[in-house]
């Protein structure tokens, strides 16, 4: 047994234990922190499995932004849970039986899955030169399966609209306008913000030929936005409802416009003219980055608008 395999086993065992502890931690704050650890371990798994794009996205979105949302929500709704009711024996065993049965069937099916080769991946690698970008994952996201990515940007947009709807607001209101920002956070922001903006820009640019791209770049930029939110100034709060909407929809509409151009020029939705493909992809990625970053900041800051809670409560 090689060291690499031992590491894989340790990683999987650690993931499983931390996932269980995160869900069932008596203190929800501890659960949220454990979930962040879970996300970081998952990012390590993606590195082991040769998926650096995912490792970047998982660390930034899965662990980072989701973690920040959870920690912030727990502050509000993390009231000490009522003692779990004493379950009957069947009540304890049945959920385990169902879950283990499902997991065993899934794992069994995957372990016995034949590796037949001839995957889509080989087709992608064979034709990546035609796509206008060099990095295969970006080629799949923006060119070969552009339709999926366009709709995914739509999902994020719908989520942002839904959060605003739940809050019954059209603009972001600073949650704690009078509160003084903690000095350590202010100092950290001074160092992190310029670096974060640079890293975000770098990730966006590098996505055309190496791991990185619009999603990772947007996640890093959104993290900077969340940092500023935590200092009491949501970066989108000064925007009017119209400007906020324009920021949120620009990714979706730019993607749509590129699709329509493809329909008119190349006779197929989202098929880009070969000569201009690289440029069109760059423009889409820029617009998508802006929209995703704005949506993620809104999803975080929109959820934590406490004034509305008090008004409602």
């Amino acid at each position, binding site marked *: 047994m090689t060291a690499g*395999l031992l590491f894989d086993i340790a990683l*999987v065992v650690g*993931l*499983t234990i931390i*996932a269980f502890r995160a*869900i069932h931690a008596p203190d*929800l704050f501890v*659960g949220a922190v454990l*979930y962040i650890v*879970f996300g970081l371990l998952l990012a390590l*798994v993606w590195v*082991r*499995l*040769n*998926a650096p*794009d*995912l490792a970047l*996205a998982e660390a930034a979105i899965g662990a980072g*932004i*989701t973690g920040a*949302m*959870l920690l912030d929500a727990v502050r*509000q*709704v993390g009231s000490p*849970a*009522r003692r779990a009711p004493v379950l009957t024996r069947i009540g304890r065993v049945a*959920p385990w039986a169902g*879950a283990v049965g499902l*997991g065993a069937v*899934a*794992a*069994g099916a*995957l372990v016995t*899955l034949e*590796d037949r*080769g001839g*995957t*889509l*991946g*080989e087709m992608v*690698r064979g034709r990546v030169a035609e796509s206008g970008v060099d990095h*295969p*994952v970006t*080629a*799949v996201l923006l060119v070969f*399966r552009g339709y999926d990515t366009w709709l*995914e940007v739509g999902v994020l947009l*719908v*989520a942002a609209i*839904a959060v605003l709807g*739940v*809050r019954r607001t059209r603009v972001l209101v600073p949650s704690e306008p009078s509160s003084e920002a903690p000095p350590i956070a202010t100092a950290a922001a001074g160092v992190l913000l310029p670096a974060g903006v640079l890293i975000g820009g770098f990730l966006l640019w590098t996505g055309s030929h190496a791991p990185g791209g619009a*999603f990772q770049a947007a996640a890093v930029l959104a993290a900077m936005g969340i940092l500023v939110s935590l200092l009491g100034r949501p970066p989108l709060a000064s925007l009017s409802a119209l400007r906020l909407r324009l920021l949120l929809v620009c990714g979706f509409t730019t993607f749509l416009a590129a699709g329509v151009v493809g329909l008119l020029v190349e006779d197929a939705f989202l098929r880009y003219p070969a000569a201009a493909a690289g440029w069109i992809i760059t423009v889409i990625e820029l617009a998508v980055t802006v929209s995703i970053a704005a*949506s993620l900041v809104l*999803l975080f800051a929109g*959820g934590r608008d406490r004034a*509305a*809670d008090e008004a*409602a*409560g």
Partner: protein
Amino acid sequence: MSSYVVYVVGAGLLLVVGVHGALTARHLVRLILALNVMSGGVFLALIAISARGAGSAAGPDPVPQALVLTGIVVAVSITAFVLALARRIHALSGRTSLSEEDLE
């Protein structure tokens, strides 16, 4: 035993933990955590399949990787929306769970 087997068994274990959590947890935030653990298991299965052909010079299959990247962003959207709903429920009713027994 190969890395592939280790990771797909891991995917199964995460599915077990997530489904069990979803069936037993009451607090809305715990349900959201369980949902995210389940999707982590699904992502792990996809990426283990993607990496299986890595023995060849070609490298991992980029299609499942793109799928999971999409999945991560959808998961964070859902999490944010459900957390906003949970906060609204808490603000309006003071409850943190949807089970009937907690109504009192």
